[in-house]
């Protein structure tokens, strides 16, 4: 069950997108996030949907995998949609007590829904197509200039890659501890909220104990191999900006331009 979460996962395949420079992908993702908030009507989302499908094809990621990533956000999405549906003033279509649905509300809630969906799907491509290690070395490289003003770029990157590395391990561990406590009759999904919260104690404590133990062991292992951060540390795989990255950049600019020029077509919301 915990294993069903696909968001933030890496999806291995041999596509051009997978081979792009991670720094480019990170920057483009940031630009993408901003540009989503600039979309003003549904034409923009229509174009974006087509572009997303194209990106799926190019990066060889099944659309179903992309949609599965939305599952954990279902509750957030429904709340946003419902709030917008009932809370927007305008031409009333239906009313019951203080609850009302307006024409504007329907449009607004759909609009917000699309925004979240495309925000999540678009940004997911970054993690789907980039291994955690490449991703962190990209972040490190992007943070380098800030090292002069005291940002610990290498340390941040190292912490991130260790954290990412241990997520699956901890999930596996949680599953195991849950099974072990169930074998002693722990009722994990019964009773009221307080009882359920209490039932978490036998799971959380062993989990913390083991996380600390692992951290300790890792620290010793790193130190015994003379790990030290800092400037004179070299990399096995240097990041290289290539021709295909420039090409990708142009394609991206073109796509965003097309998407945002839709704002000129039809009325904005």
């Amino acid at each position, binding site marked *: 069950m915990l294993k069903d979460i696909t968001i933030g996962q890496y999806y291995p395949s041999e596509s051009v997108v997978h081979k792009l420079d991670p720094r480019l992908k990170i920057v483009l993702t940031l630009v993408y996030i901003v540009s989503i908030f600039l979309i003003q009507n549904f034409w923009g989302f229509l174009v974006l949907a087509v572009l997303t499908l194209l990106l799926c094809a190019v990066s060889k990621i099944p659309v179903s995998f992309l949609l599965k990533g939305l599952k954990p956000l279902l509750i957030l999405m429904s709340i946003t949609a419902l709030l917008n549906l009932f809370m927007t003033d305008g031409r009333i279509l239906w009313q019951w007590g203080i609850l009302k649905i307006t024409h504007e509300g329907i449009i607004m809630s759909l609009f917000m829904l699309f925004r979240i969906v495309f925000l999540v799907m678009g940004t997911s491509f970054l993690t789907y197509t980039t291994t955690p290690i490449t991703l962190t070395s990209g972040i490190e490289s992007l943070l380098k200039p800030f090292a002069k003003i005291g940002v610990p770029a290498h340390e941040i990157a190292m912490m991130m890659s260790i954290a990412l590395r241990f997520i699956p391990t901890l999930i596996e561990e949680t599953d195991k501890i849950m099974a*072990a*406590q169930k*074998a*002693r*009759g*722990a009722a994990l999904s019964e009773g009221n909220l307080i009882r359920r919260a209490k039932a978490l*104690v*036998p799971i959380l404590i*062993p989990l913390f104990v083991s996380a600390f133990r692992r951290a300790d062991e890792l620290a010793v292992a790193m130190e015994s191999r003379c790990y030290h951060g800092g400037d004179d540390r070299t990399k096995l795989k240097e990041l290289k900006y290539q021709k295909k990255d420039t090409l990708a950049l142009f394609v991206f600019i073109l796509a965003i331009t097309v998407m945002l020029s839709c704002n000129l077509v039809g009325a904005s919301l």
Partner: protein
Amino acid sequence: MNISVENLTYIYVPGTPFEKVALENINFTVKSGEFVGLIGHSGSGKSTLVQHLNGLVKPTEGTIRVGDRIITGKNADTKGLCFTVGLVFQYPEQQLFAETIYQDIAFGPSNMGLSEKEIDLRVRTAMELVGLPFELAEKSPFSVSGGQKRRVAIAGVLAMEPKVLILDEPTAGLDPKGREEILRSIRNIHKQMNMSVILVSHSMEDVAKYCDKLLVLNEGKVMLSGSLAEVFHHAEKLHKIGLSVPQVTLAVHKLREKGIAIPENIFTVSDAVSAIMNLRG
């Protein structure tokens, strides 16, 4: 309490690229009071199999009978089964959580809804059975040695007084002395409490010394099963999947090839010693 497993198949995460057939068409029985060894390579499905017996994992296909309970299908009702079939996990010390050893051992019995008095009695009995002095009861389970932690975890399952006790590699990661002590306690528990015991292990020496019956798993299937003599008779077959018969049994086989009239079915060093002494008359 008899256990029988019929045509059991289990598939992890079916319908995804990570699909894995962990168990395939497993059949076996464990009769009341038997001491059964379950051996097999890493990844052969031992842990998956034993988790079926106490209801943690539900069969994809097939049926499991525990006493008069019948478990079949994904939605089988397994409530309370974990109190009848006690399962000690691999590295069970990693599940300790309470402030004191006493509270940790009492976790299982209190989940059964027993009275304070009954719980107290059970904790004391369980500690005694695994050889933990009662002075340790008020200590933190995190402050004792690795071997003692493991005993605390085993006591936590024993305190539920299950009819069947399953131990998943209870000696993994312990030194030879610790292993011997744990296994001896298990044998005592088996005799005193008249429990059926299923011991999951990698070590042929250990199962040869303590078990009456063996079940050998290979890649999710039962490869051999039966008495020690029946299983160890297939030394070749075991060798092929990277398991072996106990060293002393091999030595006895060699002696017999040389024409020495020593009985065939010898599985422990002490048996071999007395057989050889007999030879000398």
